[in-house]
């Protein structure tokens, strides 16, 4: 990721964010928690660099959650300032699923390219599926004659 870095978060902001991020995305089975991949470190800086429009709401949300129990704070924020909660939750999920380790674990290579032979005969032409559609005949209403 090469997102443009903007004003860095303070250590207190990162600590508050870490608590909420792990509430939103905890360790579960083979999947790491948000902080285990470092969501509260460089990743969040990069995410906010890609989406400067959510920065103010993100910081506002952290301000309201500072020093509180993450679950209690996140639930209150979700009810009372949905825009701020949406900014924090979007930043968390986006940063998490942009991470290469996470992508590997869920089997997502990113929007990669895929080779194919445009002249290969598709399966639906040989297994009878298209033939059954064609056999049912034309289905359009023709232009009425005047």
């Amino acid at each position, binding site marked *: 990721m090469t997102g443009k870095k903007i004003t860095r978060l303070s250590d207190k902001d990162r600590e508050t964010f870490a608590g909420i991020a792990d509430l*939103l995305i905890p360790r579960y089975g083979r999947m790491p928690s948000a902080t285990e991949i470092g969501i509260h470190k460089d990743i969040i800086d990069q995410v906010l660099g890609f989406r400067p429009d959510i920065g103010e709401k993100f910081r506002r949300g952290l301000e309201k959650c500072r020093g509180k129990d993450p679950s209690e704070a996140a639930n209150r924020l979700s009810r009372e300032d*949905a825009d701020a909660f949406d900014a924090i939750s*979007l930043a968390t999920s986006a940063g998490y699923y942009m991470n290469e380790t996470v992508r590997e674990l869920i089997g997502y290579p990113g929007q990669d390219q895929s080779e194919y032979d445009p002249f290969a005969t598709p399966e639906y032409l040989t297994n009878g599926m298209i033939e059954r559609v064609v056999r049912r005949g034309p289905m359009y209403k023709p232009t009425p004659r005047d």
Partner: protein
Amino acid sequence: MVASAGGKGKRSRRDEEVDVVIVGAGPSGSVAAKHLSAAGFSVVTLEQGHWPDPDEFPGKRPEFELVSQKQWHPNPNYRDRERDYPINTDESHINPLMFAAVGGSTTLYAGHWTPFLPSDFRVKTLDGVADDWPFTYEDLLPYLEEVEREVGVSGLPGNPAYPPQKAFPTPPLPIGKCGMKAAEGMDKLGWHWWPGTNAIPSVPWNGLNPCVRRGTCMTGCPEGAKSTANITYWPHALKSGAKIVTGARAREIEYDDTRGVVTGVVYVDEHGREHRQRGKVVIVCGNGIGTPRLLLLSKSKTFPNGLANSSGIVGKRLMMHPFSAALGIYEDPLDGWRGPFGQLIESFEFYETDEKRGFVRGAKWGAMPGGGPLGVTSFVGSKIFSGGDAKVEDSWGKNLHDLVERRFNHCMVWGIIGEDLPEESNRVELDSELTDTSGIPAPKLIYKVSENSHNMLKFHVDRCVEACEAAGSIETHVVHQVPDTGWHLLGTCRMGDDPKTSALNQWGQAHEVPNLYILDASAFPTCGGVNPTATIMSVALRQTKHLIAARRNQKAA
């Protein structure tokens, strides 16, 4: 910035009168520019956006899903780029989507290539509603076939939903596991389906590269493999001498009350400077919102309510294709992020009217993949990011992991495009306060989804769920009448035979102004139940060829 065959920086004489001034370099304006310049007309096109830069498209980068929700969002009000104009949607059920650039909104479209069917041109005769078109499917077919070669359409010939026509220029794209899953359900039910026809070539074609199935069509194709007019039309137009001025916002079409003709277009450049481009003929191709906006802005002694608007029809009958979707989750992995993010397969099973269903007309379905991990948690069938009474942990925490595990790579979406019947109460006006960054009054929409559309989408959603289940879904979700889906903007300057009820004749020529033409979807009397780009471009070609053929009789400024 002025572009011509001499290079993108070459300047033209701004005071020269050209044969044709075109407003808008989207699909219809580009068709006109290419063919008029090839026929020897001097052409200047004014485009408020810029040339798209494929390196800016985010599809190859990890942040693709994140920025597609803002910087590359199709809603200009949300995207809020300087070249976008704002639209007041306070009184609209649907948000209009568009993009200002050479190539227009096709920069972000999905490339579904679904021409109108014969019945779409005869809605009044067949179903007793709305209006017939002034020409037929058969009249338009030769132009459709020519456009399909220029565009580089990929598809399988022989679709029984359509009358026979020439084969598509490039072979069909793979439908992939996701398309095959959708097809299995349709096959089981005995319902129509066909491999998707798309404006995305499978082999190199007319300057386009072949699709590599990256699946990021709707944020611009980084491969240059989705057919957009900046690639398929403008190189030819520039070679024939056409000029294009980018960053040019049209503010007014000037009308000579004495002679009864338009004389050119006033536009504002990016530095706020005003210019005048004179032309013998003016063609407007600004889409179903931008075009009536410009006409309503162009007031004169003869036309105090907007140019060519004595009928009062300009801006009225806005159609936007209300959209619903059904999502199926399957045990099998479906490569759900893989493209094309055009349509994998399509269905016209319920396209024609059956009065027993409680509505008239019908809809086309297109099967699409579910997208990446952010897409499957927030796009369709889920509002996991919403607040309400639910606890945060209900949608997040372990439940988020479970949701992504269940859906990501296992999703197929049926999208429904239903015919939106024209109603004069659905309309575009000029906003009394809102302006764009050039100070030009912005449009305001008044639009309600009709009962016919509501009933139609409900019926189709229920059938889509049946199709998902027939294909073996373990879970289905429905989203009904999604607001951010106004991709198709049609009907606001309709064609017709009667000047009292229509703005244009069958050639897109204004009844009241002989040298003013509108070649975009504003001219459509009805909107069909399909994605309209194929028909928009075909109609533009038909009208352009008529203008060329009738050039000796053209009254000009």
